[in-house]
């Protein structure tokens, strides 16, 4: 289990002030769950993910993965970035197998595993292409395959589909659910989109900015239902889905948030 306990992060800002980016966030990510963090821009979602990934030390609090404190990045936590971070000098298969190379696996085994993972994300025909020959959605899929290659205990995804068009985005969401259903990986997923959060999360935590904190939490079963019958319409037309959508929307747009005026409400909701 991944546990985040009272995690706070203060960043130094200009002229000696501090930014309180994360305020006493607590979170559990159990086996088989997809925890989605949802919130407006600047509410500390990436900060939380970076701390879990080990890129960022906490000012206060603790993070443990299966009882081990998290201090540094490591292959037990696979990360999928918003911006693609594939190496342009390596082929798609080599990129996918990068973590296996670091682990010292022989070339043949790496290749086999890379092909298997590329099959999982539907890119078996592109093993020998270079990343710049792929579209944005394809690169993001390679990124997911790469993060899965080292068989991490948890997958951390920072708005991985944020830059994709809605059609590709839906395909990618379904792909992610497939991967999750097949591998049983825990996933921590960040998004701006309420719909995406509701569709993907077994748990959705809503965050609010300044200071960034977790303000609400919902346990859902839409994703399990979708994984079982693959019926998107049944999920989207469920009255519960629309209700939750409104409820979350109201939390996110609660007027107590600084700088929020009537006219700006829809701003970040696309």
């Amino acid at each position, binding site marked *: 289990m991944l546990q985040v306990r009272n995690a706070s992060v203060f960043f130094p800002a200009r002229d000696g002030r501090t930014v309180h980016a994360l305020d006493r966030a607590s979170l559990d990510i159990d086996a088989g769950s997809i925890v989605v963090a949802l919130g407006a821009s600047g509410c500390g979602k990436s900060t939380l993910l970076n701390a879990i*990934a*080990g*890129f960022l030390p906490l000012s206060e609090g603790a993070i443990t993965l299966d009882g081990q404190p998290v201090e*540094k*990045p*490591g*292959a037990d*936590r*696979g*990360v999928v*970035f918003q*911006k693609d*971070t594939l*190496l*342009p*000098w390596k082929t798609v298969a080599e990129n996918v197998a*990068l*973590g296996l*190379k*670091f*682990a010292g696996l022989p070339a043949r085994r790496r290749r086999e595993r890379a092909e298997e993972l590329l099959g999982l994300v539907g890119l078996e025909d592109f093993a020998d292409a*270079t*990343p*710049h020959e792929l579209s944005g959605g394809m690169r993001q899929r390679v990124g997911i395959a*790469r*993060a899965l*290659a*080292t068989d991490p205990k948890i997958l951390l995804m920072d708005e991985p589909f944020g830059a994709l068009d809605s059609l590709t985005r839906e395909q990618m969401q379904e792909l992610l659910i497939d991967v999750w259903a097949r591998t049983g990986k825990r996933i921590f997923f960040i998004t701006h989109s309420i719909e995406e959060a509701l569709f993907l999360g077994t748990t959705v935590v809503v965050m609010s900015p300044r200071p960034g904190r977790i303000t609400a939490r919902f346990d859902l079963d839409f994703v399990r239902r979708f994984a079982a019958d693959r019926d998107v319409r049944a999920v989207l037309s469920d009255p519960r889905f629309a209700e939750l959508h409104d409820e979350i929307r109201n939390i996110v747009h609660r007027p107590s948030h600084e700088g929020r005026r009537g006219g700006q409400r829809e701003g970040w909701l696309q």
Partner: protein
Amino acid sequence: MTDLARADDTTPAPPAAPKLVQLHPFGLGGARTAPISLATGAALLGLWFLAAQYRLVPPLFLPSPQEVATQFLAIAEDGYAGATLWEHVAASLFRIVTAAVIAASLAIPLGLAMGLNRWAKGVLDTPIEFYWPLPPLAYLPLMIIWLGIGELSKIVLLTLAMFAPICLSAQAGVRALPIERVNAALSLGATRWQLFRAIVLPSALPEILTGLRIGIGVGWSTLVAAELIAATRGIGFMIMSASHFLATDVVFVGIGVIAVWAFAFSYGMRLLEAWLVPWKGKS
């Protein structure tokens, strides 16, 4: 009824050889400039020919292309100042290549270290920033006093001139490394050495090769200064020696030979770049 998807014999068959297209590059990209460059070269040659033909400039200052060509053949056959043309070229090439190898093998590791390590940066910054803007001719006398008039002082002078651009670009290569790329590798379990080997070095490679290309160019432009030091061989020596006798045509031959070799090196570096970093500018 309109059936837009109907297979229709008015649909043009796809051309046998379809037109291949690519993204519009920014700036020059891969646009072919060779024909323009060749035309410019031919025009300059023509101007030179005309200027000499109509005596617009006294022959002592500007020999005609034919004279220079004749002189070139004469030197190639009989040599100049006690050495054949090839011996002069070989002496210069030996100095340049030796200095380039030494400069690269010192400057690349040191530049990378300066990009990665506070101490390396702190210690090396001062001497490098101090010496590298100096013209090599300014510290030439020191080279002679310290190292004598043999090959050593010449090679050290060239090495110093080439070192700085290579070192600075290796540093710049490390500094331009995006942090996400580092974090991605760390979260895939890279050790520090693997991070360096698999991420830092290849990411800095394009910059390093650019530095190498600039360094070798600087080497050629320092060659004449280096061969001012009591040389008996070398293209730079040949030029200096000819200037004492106002043998302008020999000077022209020397300049031409240097230009051709410098161009060949630069072209070789470009091929090396295309081979080693084909992804440059694509990410």
